[in-house]
């Protein structure tokens, strides 16, 4: 009965695989039912497409060939045809009305090159527009096929890397390499001390650089890392740095460090200069948006200001701009005491006023005590200070 039922089901379709249990016990058939749909290879679940290295290489060769063809077509020298020239040539041949660059049709290099090779026969003369319409975008294969993990095993199924079965082969190989460097450094140090040379002073990592972040390291290795892994790696690098002879491996370590922006340095205040009459003056430079200004502030003045050879009333007819010039002097209570001659260029009227304001403030630093300079930087008015303190 059961067999008949089974047979009927078989006819309906699907596949039955019978799991037989070995052993002295009676055979119990456990039926596992799978449908044809499932039996078919699930392409979507197999992960992102993996490119073989050979494929990439072939693409690169074809790209270069295509590039040379294009250079010939445009009448340029194929040897010195850069990516920019390629872009210009494509833009010339196919002016596209689409604004977004990514929207413009992009074609895989392979098909493009195949097309070009047919075109090469009609080269220079028989360009029909329909043919030409097809190649629009020419880019180096590494930009089109983003760096993804290439297939890690060969045709026989054996993986290439010896650490493949750890799961994180790039990470562990990196750790292995770095530790090897560490051991080398220690061996070198031992050799040096054996020979009697004193150990070099420990070199501190310069404050202008930092190690790669976890995200950056993941991008480099093309593997996901855990926080713990990342911290282990950074600890190893730091240990390498602190070793006396660690700086031998500097080139290796530079791969994992990045420059950071210059930190705030202590500003040097220039001393006052004196001109022929013995009047003290000081120069300052300032900028705002695209305006650049230099200001020369003279002592023993009457509050006269000249901008680009013109009186301030004529150069800045708007009150708002003159107020901007007033602020540094007003802050220091030195409104009528200095003369100023400034030059300014670039920008509009508002940014020119702001640039001169900064330049005059910088110039006034030389006339003023350090404490006041600090107040200027923080924007604390002296009078206000007396109120809160």
């Amino acid at each position: 009965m059961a067999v008949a039922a089974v047979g009927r089901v078989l006819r309906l379709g699907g596949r039955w695989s019978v799991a037989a249990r070995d052993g002295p016990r009676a055979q119990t058939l456990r039926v596992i039912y799978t449908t044809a749909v499932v039996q078919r290879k699930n392409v979507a679940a197999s992960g992102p497409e993996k490119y073989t290295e050979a494929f990439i290489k072939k693409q690169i060769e074809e790209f270069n060939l295509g590039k040379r063809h294009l250079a010939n077509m445009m009448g340029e020298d194929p040897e010195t045809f850069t990516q920019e020239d390629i872009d210009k040539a494509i833009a010339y041949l196919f002016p596209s009305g689409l604004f977004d660059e990514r929207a413009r049709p992009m074609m895989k290099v392979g098909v493009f090159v195949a097309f070009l090779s047919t075109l090469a026969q009609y080269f220079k003369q028989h360009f029909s527009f329909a043919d030409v319409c097809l190649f629009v975008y020419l880019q180096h294969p590494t930009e089109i096929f983003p760096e993804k993990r290439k297939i890690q095993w060969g045709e026989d199924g054996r993986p290439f890397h010896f650490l493949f079965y750890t799961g994180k082969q790039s990470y562990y190989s990196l750790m292995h390499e770095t530790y090897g460097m560490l051991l080398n450094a220690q061996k070198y140090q031992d050799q040096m001390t054996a020979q009697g040379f004193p150990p070099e002073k420990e070199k501190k990592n310069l404050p202008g650089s930092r190690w790669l972040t976890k995200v950056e390291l993941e991008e480099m290795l093309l593997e996901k890392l855990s926080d713990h892994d990342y911290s282990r790696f950074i600890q190893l690098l730091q240990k390498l740095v602190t070793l006396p002879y660690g700086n031998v491996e500097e080139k290796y370590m530079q791969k994992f460090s990045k420059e950071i922006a210059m930190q705030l340095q202590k500003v040097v205040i220039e001393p006052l200069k004196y001109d022929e009459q013995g009047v003290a003056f000081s120069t300052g430079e300032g900028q705002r948006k695209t305006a650049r200004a230099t200001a020369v502030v003279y002592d023993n003045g009457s509050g006269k200001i000249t901008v680009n050879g013109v009186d301030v009333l004529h150069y800045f007819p708007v009150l708002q701009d003159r107020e901007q010039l007033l602020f540094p002097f007003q802050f220091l209570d030195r409104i009528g005491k200095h003369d100023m001659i400034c030059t300014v260029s670039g920008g509009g009227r508002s940014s020119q006023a702001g640039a001169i304001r900064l330049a005059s403030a910088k110039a006034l630093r030389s006339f003023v005590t350090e404490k006041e300079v600090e107040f200027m930087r923080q924007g604390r008015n002296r009078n206000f200070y007396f109120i809160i303190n």
Partner: protein
Amino acid sequence: MLRSVKGLVCHTPKLDHGHALHTTAKDWLSSTVSQDVRILAERSRAIFRTSENDPANHAEHHEGCHYSIPLQEVKAVFPHGLPSPFQQQIKTFNEACLMVRKPALELFAYLKSSSFAHPAIRYVIYGEKGTGKTMTLCHVVHYCARQGWLVLHIPDAHLWVKNCRELMQSSYNKERLDQPLQASFWLKNFKTTNERFLKEIKTQQKYAWGKRESTEEGRPLGEVVEQGLARVRNASDAVGVVLKEIKQQCHLGSFRLLVAVDGVNALWGKTTLRKEDKSPVSPEELTLVYNLRKMVRNDWNGGAIVTTLSQTGSLFKPSSAYLPHELLGKEGFDALDPFVPIRVSNYSPQEFESCYHYYLDRKWLQHEKARTAEGRDELRFLSGANPRQLQRLAGPL
């Protein structure tokens, strides 16, 4: 009840007594304080005011001081001459105070020392925008009016070369154009200023205004003016007649003539007016301008010609131009040459202080920071000691 009232009566004197003491003390303190303030105010007033109201007596020690003109005189002498911000200031402060400044004093010296047998000397007041050229001119006009001169004051010659609604072809000369509205307006103000002269001066020839109207010889000039006011069509010609008569009779010596023109560069510049066929009008095609040009020529004696250059109302001139040859152009410069140039510049520190204290005294500067020294420095910086800028800055404060 009586007891309570008595109690009240008993108590209140004590309170009153205490109160009285308290109030008298306060009164005494406040009186002393107000006395001090008054003394201070008077002292500071002394710095920037002067009681010398006759411009003839203004000397160098009055420099920087404000003198006031009685309001009736303002109406008589300056029906149209003062700049409009100043007119508003007169209304607000209820007095007209002018500052005595060096250019005006210079002009007075020249006028006093010039001989009127010689041809009239031309003075051109020039300077940057907002430095006080028109006010200097008004000062001179006031001086001459006080001295009894006949004042021919054209408040702004630019008004005659732009924004004219009605342009008519002149009946006198076919090629010229009349401006009835401007002419009649000016005649009205001229009449207010120079009433008594209009009765004294007699016409020396017959003028026919139309088929039926005419003015005989020997009639007072007032009739010509009336004619111009009554028949607006003939107003520009009336102006021309008035100018001609005055010029002819000036050398006789019965009166002195002051020709005061503000914005004289309008007479030689371009106009924004167009004829009916859309062709541009040049200044000499306008009757008023043509006659005025004749006045400004120095072919008469017995008076002076004081003019001002003005960029503010001028047409087609860059805003940074203030020198005579820039604003007058070659033609104007040649026409006015030779002249005595008088430069008016921004306030000197002393004049600035005077103006600042005047505003404080008039309670025009209400902001509490404006009274402090820092406020004054800030005002000086922001205005650049320019009178107009200072006046505009002080407005919102």
